[in-house]
Each structure stands twice: as C-alpha cells, then as structure tokens.
C-alpha cells in the first residue's frame, strides 16, 4: 500500500503559502491561556497578581498627588486625610489665573513641539541615507551619533549656556529645542533607520521606474509606509524633551521658562504651597497621559522598534 501512482502530482503543484503567511497562521493559532506562560501550569491568579500589585504601586504616589491638589495648604499641613475634607479648586485657579504659572506649560509645549518637528525633519533624510546607502564613514557616523545619547546632560549644562549666550539665544524656545536635539536626533535616526530597513528597496526602485521624483516618492509612498516608525520616534522625542529639566532650566530665565522650572520656583521664602505645587504637578502629568492614550496601540509594537 505505497503512496505512488498519484499521476496527478507529477505536474504543477498548487501554490503554497509563503513562509511569512505560514508563520502568521502559526502565531495566530489560539493559545489556551493568554499569558506567555500559557499552558505550562502555574497559578494564573497568582500571575495576575504581580502586574496588579505593580500598577497599584505606580498609582499610589500619583493618587496622593491628586489628593493633595484638591486641598488647601493649611489642610495639608494640619490634618492628614485620604480624601480632601473640604475639596477645593483654588489651587488650580491659581495656576490658570497666573500667567507665570500657565505660561510655563505653554512654553514647555512650544519647545517640545519645535524640538520634535526639527528632530524628525533632520532625522528622516539621514535615516534614509543610512538605510539605503553605504558611504564614507557611515558606520563611524552612526556610532558617533549613538554616543551622544550617552552624554550626561550635566556635562553640557555650562557649555550650552555659553554657546547659546554667544548667539543671544538664551531664554528662547528655539534654544531649548535645539539643545534637546543633541539627545533626540540620534535616537530618532536610530529608530527611523530600523523601520526604514524593514521596507524593501524594491519599492523605491519601482517608484523611480514609474517616474516618481524623489521628493514625491518620499512624501507620497515612503512616509505612509513608515508611519508607525515616525509615530514611535515622535513619541520618544516628545517624551525626552517634555521631561528634561536641567538643560531647559539652564537655558531659560523667564520668557521660555518651562513649567518644571516654574515649579521649582515655588520653593520661596514664604514656604512651600503644597497645594499649588501638587496641582501644577497633576497638570504636567496630563499631556503625558494623553499622548500614551493615543499611541497605546503602538506601545508594545513600538518598543520592538522595528529592529529589536
């Protein structure tokens, strides 16, 4: 009872799926349980406990800050309650009413946006070059870019101050935006290059054969393909620029002072107004929370950074 005699098999073979499709199907084969340790025994209740406890740990200080932001300063220092006894919006009113307070947020947002735009616009062509071509000194250049990420901001605090003073750029948004580029551009190039390398060269070549000029090809064809990469890079640029304090404070005095610097200012002679401080803090968390919410679907994929 052998398997020969199948005359039908001598000719063309029905198209078989590519390896990638096979892989996709293999990955989509439903797991019995939903954790990486699926089906290997172990208590899944216990497993769910770990991230839960961790998240509780993360949320506790934030909850406490929010709690405090709704209390008057005297209530804070005199009593200790888990929820405000006399909840008040006064702290928030102070911030929204005082230009030196809310100006800080606006200033921060301005230079963060400028930085993200600048970083992305210079990083895109550079990443394209690294991804598509070899050229003199390319490996060294790439490595040099990455080492800038390893530079301690503290080392650059004073030199930046002197440099930007020389150009009369102290206390401008542009100064902070440019200064942050030192750290953000290498990261953006690295991330974008990874995503770009995932797009086959054939697509570029086909476009050129079809008569696309380079700018048109780049904008209409290439950029949509790496859209998630641009999102990830923008996310990281925003993340770093928004949170960094030292350089931002060093380079600004009043006009472009970031909110983080404004907050440290409340350490005044009249003592700390904890309530206002807390409210200011809460307000700085909100942009971050919004950004995460909007990119939440890309977070897990994005951290894979295309090449990791």
């Amino acid at each position: 009872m052998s398997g020969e005699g199948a005359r039908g098999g001598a000719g063309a073979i029905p198209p078989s799926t590519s390896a990638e499709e096979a892989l996709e199907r293999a990955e989509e084969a439903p797991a019995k349980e939903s954790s990486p340790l699926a089906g290997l025994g172990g208590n899944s209740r216990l497993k769910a406990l770990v991230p839960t406890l961790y998240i509780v740990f993360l949320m506790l200080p934030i909850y406490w800050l929010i709690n405090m932001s709704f209390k008057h300063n005297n209530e804070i220092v005199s009593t200790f309650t888990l929820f405000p006894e006399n909840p008040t919006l006064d702290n928030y009113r102070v911030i929204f009413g005082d230009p030196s307070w809310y100006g800080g947020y606006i200033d921060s947002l301005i230079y963060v946006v400028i930085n993200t735009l600048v970083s992305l616009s210079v990083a895109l062509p550079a990443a394209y070059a690294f991804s598509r071509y070899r050229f003199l000194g390319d490996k060294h250049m790439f490595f040099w870019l990455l080492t800038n990420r390893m530079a301690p901001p503290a080392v650059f605090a004073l030199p930046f101050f002197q440099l930007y003073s020389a150009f009369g750029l102290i206390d401008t948004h542009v100064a902070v935006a440019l200064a942050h580029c030192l750290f953000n551009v290498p990261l953006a190039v690295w991330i974008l290059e990874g995503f770009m390398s995932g797009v086959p060269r054939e697509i570029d070549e086909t476009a050129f054969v079809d008569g696309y000029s380079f700018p048109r090809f780049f904008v209409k064809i290439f950029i949509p393909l790496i859209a998630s990469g641009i999102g990830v890079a923008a996310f990281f640029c925003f993340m770093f620029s928004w949170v960094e304090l030292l350089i931002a404070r060093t380079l600004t005095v009043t006009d472009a002072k970031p909110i983080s610097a404004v907050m440290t200012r409340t350490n005044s002679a009249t003592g700390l107004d904890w309530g206002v401080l807390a409210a200011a803090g809460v307000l700085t968390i909100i942009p971050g929370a919004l950004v995460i919410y909007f990119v939440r679907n890309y977070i897990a994929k994005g951290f894979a950074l295309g090449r990791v």
Partner: protein
Amino acid sequence: MARITLDALAHSYSPNPTGPADYALKQIDYAWEDGGAYALLGPSGCGKTTLLNIISGLLSPSSGRILFDERDVTGLSPERRNIAQVFQFPVIYDTMTVAENLAFPLLNRGVERAEVDKRVSEMLETLDLTTQARRRARGLNADEKQKISLGRGLVRYDVNAILFDEPLTVIDPHMKWQLRTKLKELHEQFAHTMIYVTHDQTEALTFADKVVVMYEGEVVQIGTPEQLFDEPEHTFVGYFIGSPGMNILPGRIEGSTVTVAGRQIDLGRDYPAVEEPIEIGIRPEFVAVREAREAGTSGVPMSVRTVEDIGRYKIVRGEIEGGRLDAVIDESDSVPTSAAAVFDPARINVYRDSHLLRARG
C-alpha cells in the same frame, strides 16, 4: 505506537456555537490505525491544524472524545500523551548544541545520562547529523533544524504518534524531496503512527498510505491516493487532487445514460433515478481531444483557449457547452483546429449535490 480513535469529535472556537458555521471542525468519527502514515490534506483554513492540535493535546475539543488505544486522553496534556509534533518552522533551543537539543526531552523525563547519550548518538546517526553534534543549533540551516525538531520527537521511547504541521514550509525546494524521503525512511524504520498535515498534494500523496481530505472543517474523504484519484467522493476532492484538477460539468442522468453538453453518453452502469440536475466529473487525463469530424457524435465541440506544454505532456484548456474543460494529451500529440472532446465513459463520475453518486449493483 497507538491506535488513535476520534469519537464524535468536534470543535468550535466560540463559546456558544449556534450553527455549523461556528464549528471549525465538524463532527468526525474515525480511527487511525497503529503505525500508519496518514496525511491530512486540505486548503488553508479547512481545520486540519485544529484537528492536529486536538490530537496532540495543545487544544481541547469543545465536544467529543479522543482515545489512544482504549484510553480516553481528551483531558490529558500533551506531555502526557506521548506524542511528538514538528511545526511549520524549526523549533530549536538556540542556546544549546545539536546534541543537547536532542537530549532535552529525555533529560526532562529523568532518563539516566548514559542512556541519554546512547540514544542521542543513535539519533544523530539516523539523521546524518553526527558531524554537527557539537555545533550551536542556531547556526544550522533550515532543513537541518527541522531534522533536529524531528529528532527531538523520535529520541523518546514512549512516542505514540508523530504529528507534522506542514513541516516543509520553510525548506528550500531542492531539500524538500530529501527531507520527505528521510521521513518515509524513518516511518519504515520506526513504524510510528505518523500524521502529516499539508496543503500540498504532492507531499500528501507521496508520503501517506491513507489521505484524509478536509474541506471547511469536514472530512470529505479518507482513502488511498489511488482511491482519491479515481473515485473522489466529493467534487472538492476531485478538484483539489490532481494537477490540473478534475473537470466538473453540469448534466442530467437517467438510468445508465448521462446527458452532458448536449450529448448523451452511455456509462454502462445503472444509476438510481435522480430528477434534479447533477454534475459529472472527469479527469483531464481521461479526456481525449480529437478532430471534430473524426470524433463524430461521441465528440463534444470544444473551443481551445490555450495549450500549456509541461514537458512530458500538454494541458489543453478550453470550453465546451456547459463550462470549462481541461484535457491532458501526450507531448507528441497536436491539437486539431476544430477540436472535439471525447470522454472515457468508464472514468466519468456522477455527483449529486457535490457528493459521489454510486451506481446500483
């Protein structure tokens, strides 16, 4: 070695299945004989991987039972069922050498080191991997890695059955044949029950003694390759097996005469009475293309669209009244200008509602 019995087995991925459409696997009752080489053949999404995973224990069926010999193993996890599975892409432990990879399943089961070494070196020889024993498994190429995956299954003593889930998917075409031959050798040597899932009919028909053809979650036919070729029990089997597949044409049947494309053909066998339209199936190998005048009344006028020269034979693709028709002719034959197709009556199958209608008596 074990006899694997499927008892009213069915599976639905949704928690509350309402109708047949919700079932990825419709009810199956079948027994796989001990030591047989089986292929599960069908297009993507037909349920063959689901069935395989149920047999191996990676998936729990939503209804029905599965028995190894007489033991109900439906609730048992894979490691207790004594099966081995080879996946679509090689699954190896990157950090280990080839030899360590093969030793892994044995060490996990507490086998003594001396015995492990002996088994591993035997397996290395069987798989022609002795020279690679000390190499990091990660550095090998795809077919060697698949052999390691296979070896991890064979190296165990207690294996009831080996299940293959499209194992040649990532193998280079010229290595596929080698690996297939190796699998056949191993089957003859070790006599394990082997179940091989594939959508490639060549793999299925050359590997298996019996082929299980599946379509949309149902088993449509189980038979030897010859049976599948000569008497497909479902029009899908006819279409799927063979290259090109079987021609399916509408017609009517009365007694022993079938009416197709306006011609009446006497089949020489008596069929039960059927009023509704039926379909006939005839393989291109049994359709001759003659000159219209020469064929006379037995020939059906055919307009030829293309002729593909495969080498040892030619495929004539054309149309007759009632639909498309493919015919296989010898490489030396030429296609006449006014062509007619002549069917071999002995090779015509009749299908009612896609299922084979058998002659009476």
